[in-house]
């Protein structure tokens, strides 16, 4: 936080918390929140993909990542964690509230589904409703964070419909990736055909994620002044290495090359999975750090001076 503030004041045009008119970084959602988003999308994506191929280890890991990881990082970010329950109160207007309801449905019905699978304790009539309610919750979790970000008109980089799309694509990509990785580690997916399909979908999702990132950059470059500042930060300034080499290079191009041209074995599967997850994690952190607010006002904006 302290380093971030220093950068704010040193970068030309950025004013930090000074009494100058200029660009300001959003500094309220930082790494813990980015990690919570990463855990939410990864867990829900893994759960969805695993449910579709009936892969119990993936279902359980997905529930664990979201239920424990996401919850932990959200609470560590929150100013008053003891009141976190209050976030369920306004689903009529807040995406955070809607998302929390999604988590409750996802984890609640997901756990019931797992118990039903393991111990056959769920009555026959409730099996499918539990399945679909948990899936609906997971779908909400995998997209709501993108909606929560795109709802913020203050930060032009985020204020785009591509945010929920990127959330969903990254979540499903993480899901397919972890299913492939778990399979490589010996937690075998029962149906070979389904596994092959997951592998094909994974390649498609890497391409879709690459296109989404490119579209996001394109929109920022041609957007408002704040979005253009974000574009500069991502491509030329102190975030450029993490973004270009990490998010794009390691996160999309490298795994695409591995998945398309390398022979399928344990090493290549794990290497592709590792690079995808590193790229995804960096994407979340970097997009948060690149959030720039337009100058509140300048004489030129208001009076044409």
């Amino acid at each position, binding site marked *: 936080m302290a380093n971030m503030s220093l950068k704010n004041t040193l970068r030309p045009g950025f004013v930090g918390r000074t009494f100058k*008119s200029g660009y300001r970084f959003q500094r309220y*959602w930082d790494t813990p929140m980015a990690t919570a988003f990463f855990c939410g999308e990864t867990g829900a994506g893994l759960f969805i993909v695993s449910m579709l191929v009936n892969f119990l280890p993936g279902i359980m890991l997905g529930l664990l990542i979201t239920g424990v990881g996401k919850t932990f990082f959200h609470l560590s970010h929150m*100013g008053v964690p003891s*009141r976190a329950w*209050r976030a369920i109160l306004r689903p009529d207007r*807040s995406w955070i509230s809607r998302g929390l309801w999604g988590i409750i449905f996802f984890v609640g019905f997901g756990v019931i589904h797992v118990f039903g699978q393991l111990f056959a304790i769920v009555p026959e009539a409730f099996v499918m409703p539990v399945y679909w309610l948990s899936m609906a919750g997971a779908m909400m979790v995998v997209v709501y964070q993108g909606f929560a970000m795109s709802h913020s*008109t203050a930060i032009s980089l985020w204020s785009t419909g591509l945010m929920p799309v990127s959330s969903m694509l990254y979540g499903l990509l993480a899901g397919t990736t972890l299913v492939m990785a778990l399979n490589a580690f010996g937690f075998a997916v029962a149906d070979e055909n389904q596994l092959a399909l997951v592998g094909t979908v994974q390649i498609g999702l890497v391409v879709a994620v690459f296109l989404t990132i490119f579209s996001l950059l394109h929109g920022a470059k041609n957007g408002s002044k704040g979005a253009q500042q974000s574009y500069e930060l991502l491509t030329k300034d102190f975030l450029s290495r993490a973004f270009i080499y990490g998010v794009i290079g390691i996160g999309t191009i490298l795994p695409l090359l591995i998945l398309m041209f390398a022979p399928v074995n344990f090493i290549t599967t794990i290497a592709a999975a590792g690079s995808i997850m590193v790229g995804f994690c960096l994407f979340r952190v970097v997009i948060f750090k690149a959030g720039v607010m337009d100058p509140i006002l300048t004489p030129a904006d208001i*009076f044409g001076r």
Partner: protein
Amino acid sequence: MTSYGMVFDVKRCIGCNACTVACKQENSLPDGVFFTRTLSAETGEFPNVSRTYLPTICNHCEDAPCEKVCPSGATYTRDDGIVMVDGALCIGCGSCAVACPYDMRTQIDETQLTNGLFGDGNLTPFEEQGYSRFECGTFTKCDFCSERVDAGKDPACVATCPTDARVFGDLDNPDSKVSRLIRDRMGRQPLAEKNTRPKVFYID
């Protein structure tokens, strides 16, 4: 129906920041917390350079994005249009701060409440009394000095301004001073393109 708003006369503002100090005194704001700031901006090139002072404050938007995203219901709008934060309901998630285009939200952290204005950990009686209204981790912002407004007074920043650069009043009353200033001198809203319908106007 009353709808309170404020007009900043940029021509009159001399950048003395008396408003900033008055606000900090009135609201017992801890170190580093400002509900209002007078920003400065330089324009032109030497030798034709001028500096403009631009007072900023919560815009108490009619379509307040901070209220729309608040998941706990801590942010709400009073009948008179003042956007309030109930600290007892705030969970400190920061979604309001991320949604506010004017960057007018501040999170209270523990050190701000314990270090004191002198930074030695000893709170003055003024601080002890004033800090009781804040809770660590919650977000806070300007409320147009709602207690003063309820008592029929102007907000502290308006009452203090030595040049009458700040004018407070009812935007719904066409005969009020704020309405006349906005009408006669083409009052403009900050970041109007964000569609938040701010109730703070700038005139020149």
